[in-house]
């Protein structure tokens, strides 16, 4: 009976050389299989997705270095003269996030002529004008009939301009006094 059971291994025993080779190959295979990194057999992984949405709304912010500018007739020549603003350059910063491809206009809107509240005398608002520095900013002259363009800007970002206001004084026609007017900065096209 023992002899019978060993007959299954007959291929090993018939030829010593082939048996050794077979065993060597077999053992090599087992050893290689055993020591292969398990990652070669399978590497489990799982995925998940996250949807991101960022909302950017159109908006604008106007920043100025002063809320008031003034002009003083300090000398009397009797002749028309140009008087610069006492406060120096008026800096205007437009911060805006605009729609793609849009052009934004910045306007100066004067509601009335310069007026002395105590006497009721007026000076045309058109006597006030400005020169401009800064990309997109332009020179102009105030007008109480319609807004005057101060800047034309494209895209989004922070735009800095400098406006140098001056007053065209005409002493023969403008009586001494304290004249005031309000100018509104208007941004359109956001």
């Amino acid at each position, binding site marked *: 009976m023992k002899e019978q059971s060993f007959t299954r291994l007959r291929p090993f025993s018939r030829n010593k050389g082939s048996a050794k080779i077979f065993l060597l190959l077999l053992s090599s295979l087992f050893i290689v299989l055993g020591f292969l990194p398990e990652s070669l057999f399978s590497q489990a992984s799982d995925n998940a997705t*996250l949807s991101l949405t960022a909302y950017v709304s159109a908006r604008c912010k106007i920043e100025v270095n002063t809320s008031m500018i003034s002009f003083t007739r300090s000398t009397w020549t009797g002749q028309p003269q140009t008087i610069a603003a006492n406060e120096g350059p008026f800096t205007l910063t437009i911060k805006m996030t605009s729609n*793609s491809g849009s052009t934004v206009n910045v306007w100066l809107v004067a509601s009335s002529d310069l007026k002395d509240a105590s006497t009721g005398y007026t000076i045309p608002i058109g006597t006030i004008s400005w020169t401009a520095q800064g990309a997109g900013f332009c020179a102009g002259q105030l007008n109480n009939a319609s807004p005057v363009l101060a800047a034309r800007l494209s895209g989004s*970002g922070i735009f800095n301009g400098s406006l140098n206001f001056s007053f065209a004084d005409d002493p023969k026609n403008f009586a001494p006094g304290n004249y005031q007017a309000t100018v509104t900065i208007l941004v359109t096209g956001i």
Partner: protein
Amino acid sequence: MKMRKKKRVVLKTRSAFSLVVLLLLWVSTAEPVARPQWINLSISPSAISFPAADPDDQPVVRASNQMSLTISLPQSRNWVLYLRAEGDLSSAQGVTIPISNVSWVASPKPPLLDGILVAGKNIQLGSGQGRLYNGVLTFSFNNSWNYCAGTYNQIITFTATQL
């Protein structure tokens, strides 16, 4: 003749013994191959958004929701977690905002890491051993006046791999 038979029996015995030894050796060394390979990654919610805000008031906008993260896998197994954005945030009009403006703060640290998204690149979010039940990510978006108004979208993919 008897001697020859005896030799044959001895050889067969040795062969069988060797085979058994080799089998035992294989079973012991091959055990890791049979170890279970699975990992589950779950996140919630599956979508987050950054509300519109004044860039001066909120230079960094936090996402409307925190994101929770769970990794399940056979106990004591190692894992590594990556996230990847294929591209920048983009609007329907084709305007883009660099995805590098999106960052996250993670907890717990370790095993998770803070980071910044990079388009088309796998960023390692963390690595560790065993399950992770309480991962939380808070995403933030760098706000700017320079962006065009619009709604921008992108999908990021998390990949957890058992090592």
